C-alpha cells in the first residue's frame, strides 16, 4: 500500500519509513507559530518549565496580528508579552506593527514555510500552509510551549479524504467557492480529525492565493489539515519568495524540503474519495450561522447589508484585492454601507498602493486598514451592532463572531463582496 503526501511528510519528520492512520507519533517541527492571543499562554507555560532558551531561535515565529495595532490596554499588555519574549530569546522571526501581517499570509510570503515542511501554529487556520504541500496543523498554546522547549510534538496520524475537482471553473469562482461548496457538502464536522487532500485539474489551475484560501478553511470542516501536492505553481511561488527573502530565510528553502516535493502514491490509502464537477459550481455564500450553510449566490435572495469586509487570512491577498478593485473601479458604494478593506501584509498593502488599488477603494467610498485580523473575530476595526448584517471574505460566521450576538455574518469570495458593497445587498458581480 502506498502513502499519502501527509503520511510521507509525517513519517519523514518522525524518523520512520512509513506511518499508518491512527498511529501516535512524535515528530520534529520545522516551524512553530504563535500570535497575540495564543502565545501569552504558551510563554507562561514555557516560563513555568524553568527552561531558559527556545529550542531554535529561527523556528519559533511570533506574529501579534489579532488585536494589533493594540485595540486597548489589556490587548496591548498581551502583545507586550510577545515583544519582550521575542527580544529576550532573540527570535529571528518576530513581526511588530509596521512589518506585521496576518500570520497565514505573512509566513509564506516571507519564505518561512515551504513544501514538505511540518508546521504547527497555535492558531486554527495554520492549516493554510498545506497549500504549499506542507503538513500544517493548528494546535493549542500548551502544544506551542512544548514545541518551544523540545522542537517536537505528538500527533495522531490522520486519515485522508481525497477531493477531486474536475473540469473548468466558472467565471467569478475561486478557491474560496470550492472550499465553501465542499464544506456545504460535508458539513462542519465532515472531515473531523482528518486531512483534506485537494486534487484534480480545477485545483491544478488555481493560483497560490486561491490555494491558500482553500486550505485555510479546511478547519471549518473539522479537518486537521488541508493539503495540495506541490506542482509547478507551488515551486514558482516558493522560489520567488524564498529567493526574494533569501537573506531573511533561514534555513533556506532547499534545506527545509524534507521530502523532496512529496506527492501521494497512486495506490495511497484514502478513507474516502469525493468528486465534484466544477462546471456546476457557482460562486457560493455561507449564510448565518455556520460556514456549512452555503448556497449559490443566485439563490440567496434579497439580503440588505450594513457592512462588507474584504480581508483576513482567507482572502486578504493580492489576487483578492485585485478582483475587488476590478469590480469597484469607477463606482461608488451607497452612503449607508461600510466597506472595510484589509490587505493581509505590509507588502500586499504596498503593492496595492503601487497598482492604484487603494485609490480605487478609497474613491469607491471604502476604507483601507493596516493589516490585522481585527473584525473577523469581532476584535476591532469593524465590530457589528445589534441586528446588523455583514458580508465578509473571512472564514467564520458563527453567532456573534463579528460583534453583537444578534448580528449576522455572511461569507463569500472578494468579487461577490465588492459587488455586494456596491448594491448594498448580496449581489453577483455580473449583475452590476
Amino acid at each position: 500500500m502506498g502513502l499519502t503526501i501527509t503520511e510521507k511528510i509525517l513519517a519523514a519528520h518522525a524518523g520512520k519509513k512509513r506511518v499508518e492512520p491512527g498511529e501516535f507519533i512524535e515528530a520534529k517541527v520545522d516551524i512553530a507559530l504563535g500570535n497575540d492571543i495564543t502565545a501569552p499562554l504558551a510563554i507562561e507555560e514555557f516560563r513555568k518549565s524553568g527552561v531558559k532558551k527556545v529550542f531554535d531561535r529561527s523556528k519559533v515565529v511570533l506574529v501579534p496580528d489579532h488585536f494589533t495595532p493594540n485595540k486597548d490596554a489589556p490587548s496591548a499588555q498581551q502583545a507586550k508579552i510577545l515583544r519582550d519574549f521575542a527580544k529576550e530569546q532573540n527570535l529571528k522571526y518576530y513581526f511588530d506593527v509596521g512589518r506585521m501581517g496576518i500570520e497565514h499570509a505573512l509566513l509564506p510570503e516571507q519564505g518561512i514555510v515551504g513544501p514538505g515542511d511540518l508546521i504547527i501554529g497555535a492558531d486554527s487556520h495554520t492549516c493554510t500552509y498545506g497549500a504549499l504541500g506542507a503538513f500544517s496543523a493548528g494546535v493549542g498554546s500548551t502544544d506551542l510551549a512544548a514545541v518551544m522547549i523540545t522542537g517536537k510534538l505528538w500527533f495522531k496520524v490522520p486519515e485522508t479524504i481525497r477531493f477531486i475537482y474536475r473540469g473548468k471553473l466558472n467565471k467569478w469562482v475561486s478557491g474560496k467557492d470550492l472550499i465553501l461548496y465542499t464544506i456545504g457538502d460535508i458539513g462542519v464536522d465532515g472531515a473531523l480529525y482528518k486531512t483534506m487532500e485537494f486534487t484534480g485539474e480545477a485545483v491544478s489551475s488555481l493560483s497560490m492565493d486561491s490555494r491558500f484560501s482553500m486550505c485555510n478553511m479546511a478547519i471549518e470542516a473539522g479537518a486537521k489539515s488541508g493539503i495540495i501536492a506541490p506542482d509547478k505553481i507551488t515551486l514558482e511561488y516558493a522560489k520567488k519568495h524564498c529567493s526574494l527573502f533569501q537573506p531573511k530565510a533561514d534555513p533556506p528553502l532547499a534545506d527545509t524540503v524534507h521530502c523532496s516535493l512529496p506527492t501521494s502514491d497512486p495506490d495511497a490509502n484514502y478513507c474516502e474519495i469525493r468528486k465534484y464537477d466544477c462546471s456546476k459550481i457557482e460562486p457560493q455564500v455561507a449564510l448565518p450561522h455556520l460556514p456549512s450553510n452555503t448556497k449559490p449566490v443566485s439563490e440567496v435572495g434579497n439580503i440588505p447589508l450594513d457592512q462588507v469586509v474584504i480581508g483576513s487570512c482567507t482572502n486578504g491577498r493580492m489576487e483578492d484585492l485585485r478582483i475587488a478593485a476590478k469590480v469597484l473601479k469607477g463606482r461608488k458604494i451607497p452612503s449607508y454601507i461600510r466597506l472595510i478593506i484589509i490587505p493581509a501584509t505590509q507588502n500586499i498593502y504596498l503593492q496595492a498602493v503601487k497598482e492604484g488599488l487603494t485609490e480605487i477603494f478609497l474613491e469607491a467610498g471604502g476604507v483601507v486598514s493596516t493589516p490585522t485580523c481585527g473584525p473577523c473575530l469581532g476584535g476591532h476595526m469593524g465590530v457589528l451592532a445589534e441586528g446588523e448584517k455583514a458580508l465578509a471574505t473571512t472564514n467564520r460566521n458563527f453567532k456573534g463572531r463579528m460583534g453583537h450576538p444578534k448580528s449576522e455574518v455572511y461569507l463569500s469570495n472578494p468579487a461577490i463582496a465588492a459587488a455586494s458593497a456596491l448594491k448594498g445587498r448580496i449581489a453577483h458581480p455580473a449583475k452590476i
Partner: protein
Amino acid sequence: MKFKGKVHKFGDDVNTDEIIPAKYLVTTNPKELARHCLEGRSKNFARKVKPGDIVVAGKNFGCASSREHAPLAIKGCSVSCVIAASFARIFFRNCINMGLPILESKEAAKEARQNDILQIDLNKGEIRNVTKKRIYRVQPFPRFLKRIISFGGLMRYVRKSDV
C-alpha cells in the same frame, strides 16, 4: 479519578466563540474567563454552574478556534468533566494537554438531560446516569494519551521525558 455532578446540556457544534467570545481573550486568567464561559449558548451558565458539574454536549464540541482559553474557561468554572458525542480535534488536544477530563460517548450525550446527575469513573471508563439509572461504557484513551494524562498534562510529560 471519579466525579459526580449535575448535567448542563448543550447541542451540536458548540464553537469556541460561544465558549469564550474573542472580546474576552485579552486575559489568560481562568477565573476571569469563567465569568463568560459558554455565554454564546447560555447566558446563565456561568452564574448557575457549581464546582464539579458536568458539561454534556452533542457532536463536534469545541469546534473552530485553537484558543486554549476555551477549555481554560471551562476549567475556571471548576467543571469536573466534559462529555460529548464527538469533539473538535484542537479542543480535544487542548483538554488532554491541560488535563481537563473529557469523554466521548454518543449514547450518554444523547440521553442525558439538563440537571441529571452523572457519576463518572475515568479509570473504569464508565459513565453512570444516576437519574436515569443507565450505565455507559466509554472507549478508553489510547496508551500514548494515557501516558500524557498520567504525567498530569503535556508540560509535565515534556519536562520529565525530554528535558
